[in-house]
């Protein structure tokens, strides 16, 4: 948690700190299967991306894992076959008219057969509370944040402990996709370690749907995505992810933003994975399989 708080304060302290892009030689590692399978019950096709890990500095799309058989079985009796689009490594299931993926409360098993090796993963589609509203207010420039409209969403955690959420925000249809902007909640707060239940999302999370500008002396001009303006559309998706997915995403955020914490960085470690290699226990994998029910709210910024 301190990882969200400290950088803000640190940024004003490290008056003399600086960062430089440098060349570094990295060790070589064995390429492993990486699964990007985040499915939800929003209308439209569902995509599972199979890739292989690639050298960190390769700076291109990671190579596709093509030719696999990909199915998702639900204990609600449904089976979804994901079909590869060409040889892209993208496996797609498209719903029929008026149909969506998944049933709330059902458990799903992902099965991948690639080059004779089988991989599985499980997840559950948890229920999601509605988003009551999105409110906006105009703020004068302060704390390095320019003038603009700042938004928060209003919703209340579902009863019962251990409800976890990924809140995705879209500005004029554009997903706020920086690692720093990843907004996660556990029972409407930051962490599962406290006894909260069925409370409104706490303020820092409710406000976590605003774009985050770059900070630090290497900040680039962020004018491509200023704060919300009059007439902008704001879309908020509340994904009811599993607890396992919550911890996965939290670690993704930590490991992709280590530098933001400056001297307070956590150790660099591998993020967890729930992709189990069935045939060869010793094989390493990366990636995650997640299913989520989603609540959506949209608004237009008005005066």
């Amino acid at each position, binding site marked *: 948690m*301190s990882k969200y708080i*400290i950088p803000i304060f*640190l940024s004003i*302290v490290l008056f003399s*700190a*600086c*960062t430089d*892009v*440098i060349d*570094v030689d*990295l*060790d070589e*590692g*064995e*390429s*492993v299967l990486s699964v*990007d399978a985040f499915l939800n019950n929003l209308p439209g096709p569902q995509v599972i991306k199979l890739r292989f*890990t*690639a*050298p960190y*500095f390769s*700076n*291109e799309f*990671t190579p596709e894992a093509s030719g696999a058989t990909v199915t998702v079985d639900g204990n609600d009796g449904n089976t979804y076959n994901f079909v590869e689009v060409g040889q892209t490594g993208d496996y797609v299931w498209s719903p029929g008219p008026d149909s969506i993926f998944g049933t709330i409360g059902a458990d799903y098993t992902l099965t991948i057969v690639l080059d004779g090796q089988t991989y599985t993963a499980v997840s559950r589609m948890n229920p999601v509370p509605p988003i009551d509203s999105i409110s906006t207010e105009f703020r004068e420039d302060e*704390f*390095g*944040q320019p003038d603009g409209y700042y938004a928060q969403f*209003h919703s209340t955690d579902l009863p019962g402990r251990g409800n976890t959420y990924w809140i995705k925000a879209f500005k004029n249809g554009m997903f706020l996709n*920086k*690692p720093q902007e990843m907004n996660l909640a556990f029972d409407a*707060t*930051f*962490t599962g*370690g*406290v006894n*909260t239940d069925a*409370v*409104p999302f*706490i*303020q*820092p999370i409710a406000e976590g749907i605003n774009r985050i500008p770059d900070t630090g002396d*290497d900040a680039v001009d*962020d004018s491509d995505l200023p704060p919300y303006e009059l007439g902008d559309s704001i879309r908020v998706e509340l994904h009811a992810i599993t607890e396992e997915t919550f*911890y996965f995403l*939290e*670690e*993704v955020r*930590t*490991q*992709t933003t280590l*530098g933001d914490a*400056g*001297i307070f960085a956590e*150790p*660099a*470690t591998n*993020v967890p994975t729930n992709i189990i290699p069935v045939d060869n226990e010793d094989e390493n994998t*990366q*990636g*995650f399989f997640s299913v989520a029910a989603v609540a959506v709210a949209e608004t237009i910024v008005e005066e």
Partner: protein
Amino acid sequence: MQLFKYTFLSYFWGDFKIQSITKMNTSRIVALLLVVLALPFIVQGQDDSQKSNQVTLSGYVKDASNGETLIGASVFIRSISAGTVSNAYGFYSLSVPAGSYEVEISYIGFATQTQQISLTENQTLNIELGEMVNELVEVVVTSEAEDRNVTTTEMSVNKLGMKTIEKLPALLGEVDVIRSIQLLPGVNTVGEGATGFNVRGGSIDQNLVLLDEAPVYNSSHLFGFFSVFNPDAVKDVKLYKGGIPARYGGRLSSILDVRMKEGNSKEFSGSGGIGLIFSRLALEAPIVKDKSSFIVAARRSYIDVLARPFLNANDLGDTKLNFYDVTLKANYIFSDRDKLFLSGYFGRDNFGFGDAAGFNWGNQTATLRWNHLFSDKLFSNTTFYYSNYDYQINFGDTAEDQFDWDADIQNYSLKMDFKYYLNPKNTITFGGQTILYEFEPGNAVGVSDGTVTDFGLPEKYSLESGIFIENEQKVTSKLSLHYGLRLSVFNYMGEGNAFTFEDNEDASRRDLLETISFGQWENIQSYTGWEPRASVKYQLNPTSSVKLSYNRMYQYIHLVSNTTAATPVDVWTPSTNNIQPARADQIALGYFKNFKDNMFVTSIETYYKDFNNLLEYIEGADLFVNELIEGDLLSAEGRAYGLELQVEKKKGALTGWASYTLARTERKVPGINQNDWFPSRFDQTHNFSLTLFYELNKRWSFSSNFVFNTGTPATFPTDRSDIQGYVVPYNANESRNNVRIPAYHRLDLSATWKPKKKRPNRKWKGEWVFSIYNVYNRRNPFSIYFRQQTIRPQAGQPINTEAIRFSVIGNFIPSVAYNFEF
């Protein structure tokens, strides 16, 4: 008072359900306690039955100019080679056969005094030493007697006088205790700006930092740039890295004993300074001349004031950034037998963005001490202290939407120790201590749309007690021993819930098995530890000796921190039913040699240290406001070994020291680094520093400081994986701390100019200090990290990645400060 009462009760009584490391029953502990606490009365009784021809010379050694007691002054009778040194309160006691003697009293930096004394009966001799007239003979590392390095059993100990610390080139001209001790062999830091220090492979929470005997839980201002000790109020700093005497306990790796000045008991005086970061002012004066005095010292930073014009440009006008501290101490001398001291510290760091967000933290300590002389030979000190560290964070500026939290660690302690000067060959120290801890790991209140959510964590309570006895024994003129034993007992108590967790083999989060409630003061878990300590000195010849020491230490409270530098929001946790007390065993061997009439003082030490039950964390541990935090903790092993060399030049116009450490610090954690040993984050193979002081003349003096150390280890990825549009780093080899960042080196210079006094009798003395930190402008990396480019990723475009070198100090930093005394 309730707490206090309980502390005592449980000390003697307590329903210990000891499931201990060493099995020992309650009645034996109680019996032992009683014996130890009865010792003063027993030994006092024995006084009268002493051989009649032995008499005792005792008293206090003080600075003639201001009445400050001198710690470690030497009292020596050359004709019979009998001597002693004054203790932490300036008291000495020496028993010798009746007769006429010439007594030499000396302290470095002060003129040696010789007194002719005819001893026929026990006699009190209070001595006031005057400062040496020749200012050029300034001392670098003050040690008590010039050859103390060689002649005492003490090893792995460094003492820094404030005069030395004040002369070191300092970051932004701010004299700093913690930064100064990092120049000593065996002491390092994970990087610039990190709080605390690491001693011989120990993490920062393994240092017991004492300010007038009260522990300080966070020794830093401004995250880690400056330490909380006001140089104007500090008298003496002593660091024990090994051979730790039995009177100290509770931390694995070191004791940093900071003693405050008592205040000028002769006349009103003051000192202070104006620097770029702080302004300081200290005032001291007698309350009753020669009987009672006080000192009050305060500092405040004014970065915020200076920075405001610049911050406005960045719309950071409401930014709050300041820190301050107040240190005070008063004493009263009732008689030669009774002295009372009261000291306190209060400090605070404040950060904030207007009303929208705020963050503040600080320590408070208060110490009440009573020195009592039972007899000329039996000195006692009783201390009661209170110490607290807390922080508060708040967000949101409306009553409808806000978020506040705070956390603290508070403790109360009573400590008694006795020093019995049995005879010139044996000095026995014994006593006991008990500490009551209250941990408040987090009180959080969130308000969203007017709905208040309270998600605080319950407090935790524990009691740490210890009794000890130690003897300093001169066996022959060549062989001296210092041995002791400490027994420590720890109770983790209610009121609160204790948790049990499922066992896990893969070092992932352990699931809760059972929650058990305990009532107030009910014992949840107890631990007992025996801590033997010993050191031996063998004098090879008058200028050289070899020493060997061993110590076992137990640590019952732990700082929960998995970041590179500890943050101010890291909380302390007691040992519980899930967290075992940490243990360290250290053995050290040293050779000590002085040259040219103690002009050069040298030492070589090697050590091996073995750590058990160190706190480690699962990957992705949730350490913040987590009631089930114990499920995210792992128990690690550690080992550290090294070689330390130090050469000091103590006399002449050019003084200084060079220190070099060759060391290795490793950890072994189940589930991390494929269960293999890996270097700790602060491991540095080579660590060299050269510190020089040069007195050109009475006006000008110079100092320089060069440091070099091997880069600390870091974990670099090998591969990337693209998940949900994020580039996730992946280390296919699953190694921890597999790469070293580039070496760190830096040169600092400073020059001090003392202007000629306009009127010779004027009390006011001023000096200007000009310094440059990081002279050759090196961007020393604190860390190297990896990230996707900060430009917002665009759909359909691959995301580029980059490696970033992060330097805390990216430039050379010149500064000027003005210091004064009056």
